[in-house]
């Protein structure tokens, strides 16, 4: 390599690096610090050490019976995991769509575009639309069910149905989106010789799918899984805010929503930061576990 260009490089990197340091690195460090304080942003912050974490994660002995210090946290953590059950469903749907689209059928680009539309349109507008469609009396979905002789529930106000209803919107919006495009790219990267070899060995289409397609797509699957889990932990704020306000009775409140409520509704800045730090650690652990178990199995082309 030639001579170093330190000063020159600094000019190129600085605009991004300064902003990045100020608005990402500094806040991450501050979050760790803030989680050790009790602060309502109006008065002086008070140092409480690990007190926030003790309240958040600790268990207290209440007349001989152990109960969680913050039962809401565990409920909302459970909700967050529940919502993440949509990840494998979405991935499987994306893979099926990609496999069907990967055939040399006329009109495939047209279908690909149509499938992609929900993921483009997703946002507050589409969430309002689904809220309308889920209305118990006048909503599209219950009208359709009624014509089949089924009386649908009040989807978004039902403790049991609100979560699946929100997950359904997420699956609809993302199955034809980025995941499908990544799988399509992955499928196109599989050399045809692999299938020819399998066919010579007498593998039928189904066996080819399991023994060639799936292993060859492992890097794509791994990438989608890791990113989906990282987003999943932080997920479902927008849908819960627009469609259910986290209810009924907290059944659609996720960790992200809980952090928001503590920070901006109850003004517990320190406690909210502690939840965020706990979430960060959880994401790190799960990502490391993923690497450990799947990283070695990744089939690099």
């Amino acid at each position, binding site marked *: 390599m030639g001579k170093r260009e330190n000063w020159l490089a600094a000019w190129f990197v600085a605009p991004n690096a300064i902003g990045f340091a100020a608005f990402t690195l500094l806040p991450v460090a501050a979050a760790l610090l803030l989680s050790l304080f009790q602060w309502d942003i109006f008065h002086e912050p008070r140092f409480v050490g690990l007190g926030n974490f003790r309240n958040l994660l600790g268990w207290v002995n209440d007349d001989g019976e152990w109960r969680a210090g913050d039962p809401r946290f565990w409920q909302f953590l459970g909700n967050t995991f529940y919502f993440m059950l949509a990840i494998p469903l979405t991935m499987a749907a994306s893979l099926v769509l990609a496999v069907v689209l990967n055939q040399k059928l006329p009109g495939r680009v047209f279908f690909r575009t149509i499938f992609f539309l929900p993921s483009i349109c997703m946002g507050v507008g589409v969430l309002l639309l689904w809220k309308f469609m889920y209305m118990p009396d006048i909503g599209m979905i219950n*009208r359709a069910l009624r014509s089949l002789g089924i009386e649908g529930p009040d989807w978004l106000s039902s403790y049991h149905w609100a979560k699946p209803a929100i997950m359904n919107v997420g699956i609809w919006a993302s199955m034809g989106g980025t995941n499908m495009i990544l799988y399509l790219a992955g499928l196109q990267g599989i050399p045809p010789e692999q299938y020819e070899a399998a066919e010579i060995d007498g593998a039928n289409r189904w066996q080819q799918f399991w023994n060639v397609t799936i292993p060859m797509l492992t890097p794509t699957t791994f990438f989608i899984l890791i990113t989906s889990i990282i987003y999943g932990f932080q997920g479902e704020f927008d849908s819960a805010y627009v469609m259910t306000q986290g209810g009924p009775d907290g059944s659609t409140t996720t960790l992200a929503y809980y952090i928001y409520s503590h920070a901006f509704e109850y003004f517990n800045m320190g406690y909210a930061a502690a939840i965020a730090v706990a979430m960060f650690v959880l994401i790190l652990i799960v990502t490391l576990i993923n690497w450990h178990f799947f990283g070695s199995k990744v089939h690099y082309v």
Partner: protein
Amino acid sequence: MSRNAGHWLRIIISYVFLTLVGVTMLFPLVWMLATSLKAPAAEALDLKQLLPTEKLRWDNYAIVTGETSFARAFFNSAIVTLSITFGLVATSSLAAFAFARLNFFGRDKFFMGYLATMMVPGVVTLIPLFILLRKLGWIDTYAALIIPPMFSAYGVFMLRQFFLTMPRELEEAATIDGCSKFGIYWRIILPLSKTAIAALAILTFIGTWRSFMWPLMVTYTNEMFTLPVALTRYQETYGVQWPYLMAGSVVLVVPMLVVFVLGQRFFIEGIQVGAVKG
């Protein structure tokens, strides 16, 4: 013969499947558009009618967009989205050029640091960021909406990957002709990277246009709301007037659709570049 029949059967099943999925994807969006053109109250609630019965109520759009706060929110969204898109592409491409093409102290370690922070969940930084902006007096201003989201590690990563694939011979020739490094960035690398730049710009545009949590946190007056935040407020104003709400939703969705349709090719390539791990 039977193989041929199986072939056709598979094609027919594929098309039936694709059509069913396509209808599932499109139907809600069509329903949004149809509802937005219905007369408020009675007609919108009559679900036997998929399409508006009497005439198309384009005045729903006039009524919704005629609200001063709606027009203002649309304007805010436009300013914020365009500024972030421009700023993010500019700062990311400069940094990506240095990481891909310049030789400097600690370059690769520094870049790994960038990559590592891409894993930090955005939610973690939200609260300290809010406090920082409050100290700076930026809450409820354009600065709060525009500046923090403008600096992206992802953009640097994606453009660096693209710049690395470009042949070095081009810039060597330019260096001999006396072209500066900035000249190489401006006159050679950028013009040859139109695809990647367009992809990043489109991804950023769509992501920013619909972003909700950040504007919700840093704005609190009607004058500063972006369109998604304003729409959630209309839920309270219009209540069950679904045609108005759906008209507002269509106005929110259309700019993203336009950008997607214009740049579909770049957009789809961009997703793939971003996923190729370096």
